[in-house]
């Protein structure tokens, strides 16, 4: 049974391409109304393929999928009328001005001209591009183009907004501005689906997350729940000189619940990072540098897949 408040419902959802490659392998998830739902995972994990099936731009190979209570196989047009899509790569109309991009897009949804004009004004304000309304799209910065793409996705007042890696390739300032706008959108009650390979983005924006790896969902929950379940409270990051590192040979045993070895450092998972560091010093192991921090989604991902998110 589909949950009443579930905007997207997937069971055994699978995407296999003509060349036999399975991009999404029998995944189950539910996106609840009014929440920000995140797909976190490295490039090639199947996030975009999942999004494209939800957006009705790529046919479902197998399994069950309903979007806003409808079937993408037969009701693609009706679903699209109620979706807002922000693709991974900008596909703004570079032959039109900023304002024309929104007005023309409104025409594709058959929105009456007067309504389209009004919404265009409001949306340009919302994404802080009102002053650029008459400009061409090409000279805009990456962050501005993203904001315009988001405004365009909102022109039909969608029930569900799909954002595929909304801040990839943007500088930190532009990312924060974009997050702030998305946060405002959330406060207005919009339902968002976001894919990202940035853990900070997932932590900032998402109420609920699924972690994807190699076409499968490997964990699910709120960012806090995932950290609590799959990582310790704190992490002690240690760097050693190569000589010390090669001769460690079990000298760190018993200091942490779990030790992860990365190419440039060791991660000690423990409830008490300072305490563990204290013991390292007591054992006379010469440390090059040490850092105690709270566990993050990056650690969850590392734990679940043995790899980093951004490689």
């Amino acid at each position, binding site marked *: 049974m589909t949950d009443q408040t579930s905007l997207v419902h997937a069971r055994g959802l699978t995407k296999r391409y003509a060349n036999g490659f399975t991009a999404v392998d029998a995944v189950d998830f539910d996106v609840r109304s009014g929440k920000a739902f995140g797909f976190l995972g490295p490039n090639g994990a199947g996030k975009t393929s999942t999004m494209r099936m939800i957006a009705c*731009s790529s046919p479902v190979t197998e399994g069950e999928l309903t979007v806003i209570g409808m079937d993408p196989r037969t009701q693609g047009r009706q679903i699209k009328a109620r*979706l807002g899509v922000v693709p991974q*790569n900008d596909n703004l*109309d570079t032959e*039109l001005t900023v304002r024309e991009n929104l007005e*023309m897009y409104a025409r594709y949804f058959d929105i009456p001209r007067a309504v389209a004009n009004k919404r265009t004004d409001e949306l340009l304000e919302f994404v802080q591009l009102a002053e650029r309304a008459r400009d061409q799209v090409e000279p805009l910065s990456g962050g501005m183009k993203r904001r315009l793409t988001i405004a365009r996705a909102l022109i039909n007042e969608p029930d569900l907004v799909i954002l595929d890696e909304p801040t990839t390739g943007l500088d930190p300032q532009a990312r924060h501005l974009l997050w702030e706008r998305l946060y405002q959108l959330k406060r207005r009650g919009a339902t968002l689906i976001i894919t990202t390979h940035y853990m900070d983005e997932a932590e900032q924006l998402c109420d609920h997350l699924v972690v994807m790896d190699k076409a499968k969902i490997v964990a699910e929950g709120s960012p806090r729940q995932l950290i609590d379940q799959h990582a310790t409270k704190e992490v002690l990051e240690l760097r050693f000189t190569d000589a010390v590192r090669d001769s460690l040979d079990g000298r760190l045993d018993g200091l942490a619940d779990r030790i992860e070895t990365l190419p440039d450092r060791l991660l000690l998972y423990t409830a008490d990072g300072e305490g563990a560091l204290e013991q390292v010093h007591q054992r006379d192991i010469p440390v090059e540098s040490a850092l105690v921090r709270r566990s993050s989604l990056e650690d969850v991902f590392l734990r679940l897949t043995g790899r980093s998110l951004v490689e």
Partner: protein
Amino acid sequence: MTVLASGRVWQRNFLVYKRLWHRSIAFGFLQPVLFLTAMGIGVGALMSNQDLAAFGGVPYIDWLGPGLLSAMSMQTATFESTYPIMNKIMWGRNYEAMLSTPLTTRNLIVGELFWVAFRIGTLASVFLVVLALFGIVRSPLALLAVPVAVLVGTAFSACLVAFTATQRNDVGFSAIFRFVINPLFLFSGTFFPLSNLPDEARWVAWLTPLFHGVELIRGLVLDSLDWAAAPIHLGYLLAMLVTGALIADRTLRRRMAG
């Protein structure tokens, strides 16, 4: 529903065109004037009255003019249906954005064909004015040359969009220009009568699409239409348009779902 939604695709192209329309019309006027002056008056002056029998007894420039109108329709359709469509599929990704709305690939195909029809309709009208200024038009039926030119253009456009949707880069376009469009331009009875060709070659010409457009338009403008052959010419072009559009819808849908 299809017509209205496809109209939006037309509208988008028109919005871009609106800024440049005067330039486009000016080129549309200049090109036939230059061609008719160079080929018609320049080359035509070399022909004696005896030669003119091969052109149905009219001056060479009169015989050439309507043929050029047909060839212009093919060429305009070719340019509109290769690079700009490739851009909307791959480089500018316009179609990806448009297909995130309730528009379907069928709307895109029909809308682009509306657009080509509009472009060729305006250019053919300008061309007809030029033909009239050169004193070539011999019948009010010449007005029908505009819809026939539109038919020629959309028929070519549909087939070329079907082809473009299968291409991953623009290498295939130069092959199409060299081995399809140019031979058609040269051997479809635009510049010389097919009766000059050996019998087998004439038979091949009947199978090619531009020939049918040239015959119809020339017949209408010079008031020399072979009414018995006209339905065959029309039928050929209509079949090409419908088949091309159906295939284009398929290839584009596959491409965009990729």
